[in-house]
């Protein structure tokens, strides 16, 4: 705990040092204020807009599947003590989710819109 905290502090200090070193060594201390790069043209609109992610359907599948990780890590630890029953239960659980994956795949939701 303390070890992680000190590592965090150390690397934080390292990052701060790099910023400090940069402000000492950099040819110009102030950041140059530029227009966003748009391959030689000036941008016509703000890029930070309502970005249309093409894979939003996959996120639902992902989140549902991801939830089950909470169970699977502890499951790995106790597997040896629990025996065959735990294997059957966990993979039965996963099999149900994989049926969901097959359904999603057939509906084409794994492809971008």
């Amino acid at each position, binding site marked *: 705990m303390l070890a992680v905290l000190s590592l965090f502090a150390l690397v934080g200090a390292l990052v701060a040092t790099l910023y400090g070193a940069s402000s000492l060594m950099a040819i110009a201390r102030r950041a140059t204020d530029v227009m966003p790069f748009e391959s030689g043209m000036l941008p016509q609109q703000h890029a930070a807009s*309502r*970005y249309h992610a093409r894979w939003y*359907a996959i996120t639902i599948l992902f989140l549902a599947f991801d939830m089950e990780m909470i169970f699977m890590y*502890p499951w790995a630890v106790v597997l040896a003590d629990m025996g065959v029953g735990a294997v059957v*239960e966990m993979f039965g659980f996963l099999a149900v989710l994989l049926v969901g994956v097959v359904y999603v795949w057939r*509906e084409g939701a794994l492809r971008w*819109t």
Partner: protein
Amino acid sequence: MLTDLSGWTIAAVVVLGVLSVAGGIAVFVVDSMARATFALLASFLAVAGVLLAFDLVYLAVVTALMMTIEMAIMAVFMIMFMMNPAGLMPMTMVHNARGSALTGAVAFVVLVVGIWTVDWPIGRTERPEDSTRQLGEAIMGSHMLVMLMIGIGLFATILAGTVLATARGRYDRFGADLAAKRPDDPIPGGLPR
């Protein structure tokens, strides 16, 4: 109860607790969807830090892991569907400020009164050597039924979410009789079908 904890732990819990509340408040103060989302993530990470201070490593780390991924995905949707994602225009994150303030104050009072008046049970059991193992034993043993129910629930979520989220289904891809050899998709994927 508190006496089990070292002074450092208590200090960490207090600081992180304040941070998490501050993050929660920031969600409603900032006027950008991206900042609101990541203020919420900061709040969750502070909670993970509290759990870590209590030496509940697995819960702490899994909180950080899940919440980061979920907030990143939430950011996608917040920015996709909400107005003014970057906060470049002036806007406010709250509606019905008076009513919600009242509701919030009442809920706060109820909870605080509850916390200080309930006769909390005192933990008699020894702290486990390995809380991850204990969690695994609970999940695979006495709480297996819960897990199975969650499995079915997640399956239903996948199906329902996909049906609701997608405008196209298999009949659009393979034709009315599902006879097409290759699906008709706007962007091809990595597999032939």
